[in-house]
């Protein structure tokens, strides 16, 4: 990307540049509260975080929304510089992209109807129908694990609909999103059992750009150090402690 928008005020810490560099950010907007679209505005924890990091590094965010499946390919081709979409750091993905330091501690949790008494621990899912989002870690995990009937949907909302409509016994998805779902007026569902995985979200950065990775990590450190991170965390996740990265 090339620099644009000289009118944007730049208040960088260390770099003396006045011309902000454009950071092309890819995001998937169907992942509340990390990213969601409201009245045409993309908002969410991830979005505010990357903006904060970019500000620290004197970069200007150019946001581009795309399907989750398209994020890593877009990084590979250089369409975007970084992707924030609650992307779990995995060894598999590390072959294709770089990851920043973790910014959120997550894991997969199991969401079931409140009146469900048969599913209490992960092993209870055997023989049951589980709705997941196509291409997510839950999808990849169950694909390797026989005995679970997996239904894959393009949007997580479709997976939740499936649960509500009775087409699936459980939804397995990233814990914070499941929590958010309960919080946004759906009190007929609950989270059961321990997290299936302990995993971290990282900012995916395009390969062969060590400088950029360095900048992102540096910015993340600053944001954590100056309390911005804590403020944003409180704003989006309240007192729920599991996700916060200790710093």
């Amino acid at each position, binding site marked *: 990307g090339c620099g644009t928008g000289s009118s944007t005020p730049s208040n960088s810490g260390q770099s003396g540049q006045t011309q902000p560099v454009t950071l092309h950010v890819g995001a998937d907007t169907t992942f509340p509260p990390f990213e969601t679209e409201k009245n045409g505005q993309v908002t969410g924890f991830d979005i505010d975080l990357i903006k904060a990091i970019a500000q620290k590094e004197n970069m200007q965010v150019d946001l581009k929304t795309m399907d989750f*499946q398209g994020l*890593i*390919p877009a990084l*590979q081709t250089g369409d975007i510089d970084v992707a924030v979409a609650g992307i779990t750091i995995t060894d*598999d993905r590390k072959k*294709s992209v770089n990851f920043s330091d973790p910014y959120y501690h997550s894991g997969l949790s199991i969401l079931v109807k409140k009146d469900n008494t048969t599913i209490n621990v992960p092993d209870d899912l055997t023989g049951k*129908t589980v*709705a997941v989002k*196509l*291409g997510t870690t839950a*999808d*990849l995990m169950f*694909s390797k694990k026989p005995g679970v*009937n997996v*239904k*894959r*949907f*393009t949007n997580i909302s*479709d997976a939740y*609909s*499936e649960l*509500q*409509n*009775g*087409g699936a016994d459980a939804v397995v998805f990233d814990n914070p999103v499941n929590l958010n779902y309960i919080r946004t007026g759906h009190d007929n569902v609950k989270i059961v059992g321990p997290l299936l995985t302990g995993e971290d979200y990282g900012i995916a950065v395009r390969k062969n750009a060590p400088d950029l990775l360095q900048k992102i990590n540096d910015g993340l450190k600053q944001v954590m150090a100056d309390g911005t991170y804590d403020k944003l965390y409180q704003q989006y996740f309240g007192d729920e402690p599991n996700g916060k990265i200790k710093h």
Partner: protein
Amino acid sequence: MEAWQSVFQNSSMLIKGLGYTLEYSLYAVVLGTVLGLIFALFRLSGSRILRALGTVYVDIFRGTPLLVQIFFIYFGLPQVLPLHQWFGEFYTVLAGAAALALNEGAYITEIIRAGILSVDKGQWEAAESIGMTSYQKMRYIILPQAFKRMIPPLVNQFIQTIKDTSLLSVISITELVRAAQIVIVTTYFALQFWTAVAVLYLIVILLLTKLSQYLERRLQVDQR
């Protein structure tokens, strides 16, 4: 190279997906033909109410995208009817086949209607003049003659249906497109897999097109 190897390794998955594609297409065309026959007769009937019903059916299902119909049936209807409870696991298959069949049925209605109307008026009158009831006239005289002319457009509609089946991917039916997506999210070889998928569709559809052209030619010979 690695990419094409990956395609080759996952080919059984794609072929299985193609199997589902053809299976759903067949369900949809068979059911759609039944629906098409019923609604075509409605549209041609003497009853104003039946005619209106036929028109509404055709207008709704040809006037909205199949994707919306699929979402409506699969995600919308279970909100008001306990369809998953009634049909269990089978509801996905049912909803997919039903959405597709209802959609194709609307197009087939118009194919059958046109086929019936293409039968010479003299045939209708001759059938009436020997005292046939409306049912007998349709069953023994008009439909057998209309049917022959409907075959080529029906084969074309079958081709359309095969392509439409790809939309069932959105409700987790692992037909060809969804099968490819599942492989691509682990391999990332989008270009190669989509090429392979396109080739599979092309083969099936070009074969059917040839069949349709052959039938059309045979029909013209018959009508000399």
